[in-house]
């Protein structure tokens, strides 16, 4: 019984190679998918116009609308039905004067009643700025978190230096961001789902949350190292990490579970505009919880083994 418990405690640490392989495969596939298909960027990033209109009386056929739009020199555009009454139209970014002409055409020169539900137009300049700001804030968050972890664990230097805790956190963070990005590249390719600035926000929240979980385990390692040092039990580092993981396992799962539960509710019940945001968070936080339990702390053991060689 006692032995059984001990084996159970070390289960994750001893099988760390399996978890490394799972993560490596997931991250590898994500990178390939991102390189081959890329993300399907929304107008937030590449500029363009999205119009949602509804016809309260009767919705004309797509071909009729298409006929009216032909003369307008809109370039590449798409018309997709929404609900029972409406259409979603995508075009390049439009000037205010072009917008008026477009609405004239959509209402068939005023003979069809239309309601403008949404008009969203982003110029290419603003899109470029959004790309730059998004990349910058992701990098900044990662850098700040590493510095913070290095600082928070500054007193821990034996047997693994505090900056290594920071470095491992970064590896875990990159893992947590790449996986949802990869999933969205697949969704973008097959389902046409786009990523917008809200998606970037989701990634940043994933970063914050994933550190949250990693810190819970690291904090326990920090505490157990101290106890070990005080009582002079001289347990091997491997065992300390293993015990720390098993001691914090339930709370890591539970803290993520409550967050994922509300996200699932938000995905199914919440506003349409935040649905993909919730999905990105669900994937990212799941990856984050996985990495903080199975990757983050086990990498500490690997780092320590590596040092001893």
């Amino acid at each position, binding site marked *: 019984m006692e032995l059984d418990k001990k084996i159970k405690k070390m289960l994750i640490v001893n099988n760390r190679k399996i978890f490394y392989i799972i993560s490596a495969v997931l991250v590898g596939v994500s990178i390939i998918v991102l390189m081959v298909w890329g993300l399907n960027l929304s107008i*937030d990033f590449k500029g363009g116009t999205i119009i*949602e209109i509804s016809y309260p009386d009767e919705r004309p056929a797509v071909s009729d609308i298409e006929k009216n739009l032909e003369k307008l020199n809109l370039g590449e555009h798409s018309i997709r039905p929404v609900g029972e009454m409406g259409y979603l139209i995508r075009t390049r*970014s439009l000037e*205010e004067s072009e917008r008026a002409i477009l609405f004239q055409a959509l209402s068939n020169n005023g003979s069809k009643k239309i*309601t403008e*539900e*949404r*008009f*969203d*137009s*982003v*110029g290419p*300049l*603003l899109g470029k*700025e*959004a790309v*730059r*700001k*998004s990349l*910058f*804030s992701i990098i*900044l*968050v990662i850098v700040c978190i590493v510095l*913070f972890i290095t600082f*928070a664990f500054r007193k821990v230097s034996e047997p693994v230096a505090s900056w290594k805790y920071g470095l491992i956190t970064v590896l875990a963070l990159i893992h947590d961001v790449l996986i949802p990005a990869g999933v969205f590249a697949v969704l973008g390719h097959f389902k046409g789902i786009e990523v917008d*600035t*809200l998606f970037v*926000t989701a990634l*940043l*929240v994933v*970063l*914050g949350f994933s*550190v*949250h*979980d990693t*810190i*819970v385990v690291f*904090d*326990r390692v920090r*505490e157990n190292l101290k106890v070990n040092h005080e009582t002079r039990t001289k347990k091997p580092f491997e065992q300390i990490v293993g015990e720390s993981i098993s*001691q914090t396992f*339930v*709370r890591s799962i*539970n*803290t993520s*579970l*409550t*967050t994922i*539960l*509300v*996200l699932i*509710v*938000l995905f199914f*019940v*919440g*506003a*349409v*505009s*935040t649905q993909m945001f*919730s999905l990105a968070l669900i994937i990212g936080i799941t990856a984050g919880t996985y990495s903080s339990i199975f990757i983050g702390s086990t990498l500490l053991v690997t780092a320590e083994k590596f040092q001893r060689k």
Partner: protein
Amino acid sequence: MFRQRIIALLVIIVAVAIGYFIYQTEQVDSSYNFKLGLDLNGGSHLIYQADVSEVATSDIASSMEALRNVIERRVNLFGVSEPLVQTESAGLIAGKTIAQKLIVELPGVADIDKAITMIGKTPLLEFKLVKEDPPAVGTTTPTITLTPTGLTGRLLKRAALEFDQNIGEPQVLLSFTSEGQELFAQITKDNVGRVLGIFLDGQPLSLPVVREEIRDGNAVISGNFTPAEAKILVRDLNYGALPVPIKLLSTQKIGASLGADAVKAGVKAGGISFLVIALFLILWYRLPGAIAVIALAIYVALNLALFKLIPVTLTAAGIAGFILSIGMAVDANILIFERLKEELRRGKTLVDAIHEGFTRAWTSIRDSNLSSIITAVILFWFASTSVIKGFALVFGIGVLTSMLTAITVSRTLLFALGFKGENKITRFLFSCGIR
């Protein structure tokens, strides 16, 4: 013990009062109603880029301020309720090209189209020196160089319609502010004999030759106006002439019905989320779980009250952020209760275990919440849209208040229950799981 119970009672009374405040202020039209963003209320969000390439760096701020005032005056003409006009400089990371932006938010839907068109029609008034060089070899058109003088619509005080005394032609009289008067005198003094063109929206309105220094700060535009044209020009200039050219970068218009759907969905999602979390906490952590549910209810009330008092403009993303924070607010409770159980398993008495649970869980709660705060601050600072800014603000407030409710409030309530001895019942109440 007695003291703790008094404090706990006070906490609950304050929480109920906050709850009543939220309920009451939603029943009537008050200044404490929730402020809903454009995506929920319907309205337009316009982003303009101001071209400040011809403005001296030291004058950029005042030009942008003048621009803001001009546009605000324009927007107000159209009876849009609570328009928001603000300038934004993109800050340290953006290149020079899009450094200065003007953001116009027009809530509601009445007359928006007209307002947008009118903003677009705001005249841009500039005075430029015109230098005509003889045509280059092989061409016939003379090369014309235009030199900006720094005298623009920013320095215009008033425009008036006049009729030339000799031929009765309509003229537009411009009077400058005192700063403009000085500048105008300087320009005319330095450039006697040269052409000082008056340009409206980049088109030359009139190209008078400077004959002498003009000190009184008045300029006359005598183009070939009809009286009606001159009248419109005077009106437009008096509503404000643009100090710098602006260009529409992005337009966002949301109809009221989409927004109303989003609000309903958000409220429903929030309610269900709360119930799911409450159920989970009570089933898994039993008595401490129930305490955490009360703390969570206080968390919700406190946040909603803060949204009203600050006030925070709520967007769909903001509501999502708040619901997300409900899921994260209980994290601290989970960390504490897990620790509490662990201490109980180690054989500590109940009172000691509760104490240890709160103290020992603190470091990990502090460190992990700090990383969330770092994220929120960076998101807020580098938000590329107001949607993200709204999310970051709600998220950040949530993380901060959750530390108060999940730790302080739940500790106060738990101690107020006053468990001393241990028996089967308390053991059951403080253990966990489905067993």
